[in-house]
């Protein structure tokens, strides 16, 4: 019931703000923030009442929806969903905080889109029925496209259309795979079913399994994004409004990683083992390619966008190495990247509001007028390049430690990104805050609500970086592919 309630609250508030919000546009942020905090409170209360049953998936509300096709409205929660839903809600708050001064027109429709996208994302993490999953997958896509296309920067329509086409085309592949799976269930068990837990009993023959796996994998690889499906991301991130970038980098990319963890790895065990060398190669290429590309950018947001590709490459690498240490590393990396990239995009937004540019060449020397902002940026950049003590380091370290046993060469190549990330991180920090200030450029330091969001993200990165066990302690039991022996060739 809990996740359904959260989705319902968000949708309801979205509708309310759409219908009556045009008259109260000043108070809309409070309304949205209030609903998000309420959702978070509900989730926290649920977690504190049920903290011992996270080890297994816990079914929640399930009602028949389209009975003739065996489609239910079915949701469930486990520690992975819980962490991602909590991350979504935290970043939702960040999104609202960065929107306060940025959004200048159509406030009511803006918050409608923002909250609907959030509801869709939470639905994706909650769905136990694959049809429902696909439904929410589309629900989060449309408002996101609208956010980019309406409130974005100068080249927003191009970016929005590119984002939409990439996601839509790839998710159609997934839809085909979902339908085939449902019919295979009918062949094997006599009735059509889209239920995730039913699917785990399926017995899939090999070439078919491989193709189905590819259908899912491509959809998730586009979302992740993995090389070579990544090119929508720099445009979408750069053109989106700040909250859109935060949402995209912070949680939307995580739906791709979630899909890999939830569906690709457990449902197609044999095919993933066979596919692993290719996936690992893609992961390593993403890691290096993203890092090199990030260095070549002169646009603040574009740089961070490419660094996201690099970081998410670690997730691909970790998941397809079938090591439980790396699997834990992937979970940590997901959360860490969600927080740190959200922080960096917020910084970009904060700077954009003051300077009206994202070009690093037009920044420089800002430390003199805004030392606290510079300090915060340094912390977030340090998180991004894997400074120990902050959460990203734990993720990277666990990932690489885990993959080293089975894929030493891939690990060595991936580790070069530690150098690459230092290079682009320093380039970003020094380009914007060090050096000689441009004549007459004076910017205001962090405002109260900006302090709140920076402080929130920093505190989380630091706390989880020092006590990552609080994230990982529920994950001992659920590693899905631990019993697979790696038969794929070593890379």
């Amino acid at each position, binding site marked *: 019931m809990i996740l359904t309630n959260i989705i319902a609250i968000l949708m309801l508030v979205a509708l309310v703000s759409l219908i009556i919000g045009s008259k109260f546009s000043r108070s809309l942020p409070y309304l949205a923030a209030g609903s998000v905090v309420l959702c978070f409170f509900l989730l926290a209360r649920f977690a504190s009442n049920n903290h011992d049953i996270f080890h297994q998936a816990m079914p929640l509300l399930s009602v028949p929806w389209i009975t003739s096709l065996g489609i239910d409205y079915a949701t469930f929660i486990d520690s992975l969903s819980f962490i991602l839903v909590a991350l979504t809600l935290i970043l939702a708050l960040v999104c609202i905080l960065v929107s306060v001064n940025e959004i200048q027109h159509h406030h009511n429709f803006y918050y409608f889109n923002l909250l609907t996208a959030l509801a869709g994302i939470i639905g994706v993490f909650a769905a136990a029925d694959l049809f429902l999953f696909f439904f929410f997958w589309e629900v989060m896509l449309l408002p996101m496209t609208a956010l980019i296309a309406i409130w974005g920067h100068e080249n927003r329509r191009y970016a929005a259309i590119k984002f939409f086409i990439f996601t839509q085309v790839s998710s159609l592949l997934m839809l085909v795979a979902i339908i085939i799976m449902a019919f295979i269930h009918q062949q094997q068990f006599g009735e059509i079913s889209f239920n995730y837990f039913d699917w785990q009993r399926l017995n899939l023959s090999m070439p078919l399994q491989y193709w189905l796996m590819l259908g899912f994998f491509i959809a998730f690889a586009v979302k992740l994004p993995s090389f070579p499906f990544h090119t929508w991301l*720099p445009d979408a991130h750069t053109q989106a409004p700040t909250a859109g970038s935060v949402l995209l980098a912070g949680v939307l990319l995580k739906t791709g990683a979630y899909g890999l963890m939830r569906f690709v790895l457990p449902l197609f065990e044999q095919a993933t083992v066979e596919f692993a060398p290719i996936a690992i190669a893609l992961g390593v290429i993403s890691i290096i390619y993203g890092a*090199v590309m990030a260095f070549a950018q002169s646009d603040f947001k574009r740089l961070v966008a490419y660094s996201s590709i690099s970081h998410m490459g670690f997730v691909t690498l970790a998941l397809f190495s079938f090591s439980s*240490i790396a699997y834990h590393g992937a979970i940590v990396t997901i959360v860490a990247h969600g927080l740190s990239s959200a922080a960096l995009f917020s910084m970009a937004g904060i700077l954009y509001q003051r300077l009206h540019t994202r070009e690093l060449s037009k920044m420089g020397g800002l430390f003199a007028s805004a030392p606290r902002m510079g300090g915060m940026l340094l912390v977030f950049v340090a998180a991004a390049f894997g*400074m120990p*003590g902050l959460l990203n380091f734990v993720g990277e370290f666990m990932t690489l*430690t885990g993959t080293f046993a089975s894929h030493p060469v891939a*690990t060595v190549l991936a*580790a070069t990104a530690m*150098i690459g990330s230092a290079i682009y991180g*320093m380039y970003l920090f020094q380009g914007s805050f060090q050096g000689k200030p441009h004549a007459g450029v004076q910017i205001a330091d962090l405002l109260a609500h900006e302090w709140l969001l920076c402080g929130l993200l920093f505190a989380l990165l630091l706390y989880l970086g020092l006590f990552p066990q609080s994230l990982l302690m529920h994950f001992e039991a659920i590693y899905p592919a631990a019993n697979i022996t790696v038969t794929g060739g070593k890379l």
Partner: protein
Amino acid sequence: MTALTLLPFFPLFSFLILIIFSKRLNWQLATVIALSGVGLSFLASVLLINDLYAVSQSSDISAGVRESLWTWFMLGEHEVQVAFFLDPLSAVMIAVVTGVGWLIHGFAAAYMREDENYSRFMAYMNLFICAMLILVLADNLVLLYLGWEGVGLCSFLLIGFWYQEPGNAIAARKAFIVTRIGDTLLALGLFYLFLETNTLNIQEILAQQDSSPLSSEAAWWIALLLLGGAVGKSAQLPLHTWLPDAMAGPTPVSALIHAATMVTAGVYLIARMQGVYLQAPDILNLVAWTGSLTLLIAGIAALAQEDIKRVLAYSTMSQIGYMMLGLGAGANVAAITHLMTHAFFKALLFLTAGAIILAAHHQQNIFHMGGLLKRMPLISILFVIGIAALIAFPGTSGFVSKEAIIGQLWQSPTAGPAFWWMAILGAFITSLYSFRLVFITFFGQYRGQHELHPQRHFLLLVPLCMLAVLAILGGYIPTNLEQVFVAVDAPDSQSPSWLHSVAIGLPLVAIVVAYVIYFPRANATEPVPGKGSLYRFSRNGLGFDATYDALLVKPFVKLAKLNRHDAIDLLVQLISWNAFTWNSAAKAIQSGRLRWYAATLGIGTIILLLGVML
């Protein structure tokens, strides 16, 4: 929480206070906070070391105190803990870090007094001490890595402290990225080590070496990768190029980070992991090679520097080369002792150089100094004390430690006479560049444009005097290091009897040579920098920077900028370009002109009819 776990937290707290209230603190308050942070941890370390020695006196097993705070994360079954470990080796390190660090903090308080960002500066310095303490106290290699990265970040911040000068920012970035290459190698070493031993706890790894040692291949790789980390941090070949540029930072930073503490972290790491290195004698030999080549190359480069701080920077590299050489030869006790004495005399040298630079209005070129002995006698004498320790003049601390290293080279199984000769040659060059520096800076006529304004603040002078005492007597501080290290068995062959006299005598000969070449004669013209190509080559650090720039940096930047618009995106755009092209081709037919349609209709009909008829 005992004193051991609190140790790194004292400077951390003062860092937090300084950074939070930065602009609201005046000089006195900020100084008190910063000095008390480091001072408290110095007092705590003195107490801890006393306890440790008391324990080690009463029992003959190697003593160590371990304090665990919490489990950081799990690597499979292995718990990576946030835990600190104190044994005689880390005792030496914390004593140096907090003791020398405290003195340098005191000096820095006077040196940076006029700076408008004074409390931010002291905050960074405190943070550095905290990170360095974590590094040397870490009970496992992941926590060590935390400190390792932490000191790197502080080094970056402090080199680029005057960030508005583009040159400083570039130097800071270079230091960070070059050491980061080493850090990555170190991280890879940790991955390999974990794969082989299933633990990253230092004591567990070392204990395993007795029962089930690493295979020789694994030990070879691990030792090599750890060495990679060490050469990055300790500015040894081939990752040494960042250190001379790092002198862009304020002088107390150079003294603290780039001479006394952080750059010796690599030496500490190799000494700490001695058990692993003993499984890989080839790599120990490589360590010796690294050290000896670095000490020679850095010495030669130091001979041609014109900036007083760059001379000292190259000299630091060269002295760390001695430590590496000592480690490679199995003379760990001597190497760590040299680490300690070097911290004393090099901090003294840098700080006196700082006092000179401050008096000379931030003039660092030695050819614009001269005659300082008469104008700043106290500072000059302190500087010469430092130089005496640097060249291992008999009776100074440097003599104790450096002679101990050199004395073990001849017979060491992983070093040998060739290394002894290189070390001796290095000692000769050390004397030569040291006295070139002394003669040009302190003798002859003053050549600067501005009048000298020596500072006489007690915070400036007291640390200098205390460091001078340590530079002379510091070699006799008891360390108990023998308990930590495995003694390496040397073959019984006798080394020649003239070894000692040559080792002691040659540096003294070099002083005479330096006197002949560099001492300013009363009737001669002013000393000028050399002009020859060899001199320039040496001044530019033997061309390493230019080579790396041409081979690595430029191609990388070029490649990255070349693909700035993402070739993959071009492929994707090819699809849309295709659609647009066909679209516009098809569009051209639909002109909207009625007569054109009629004409094509007619022509089409004619063609069809002709086709039917023929």
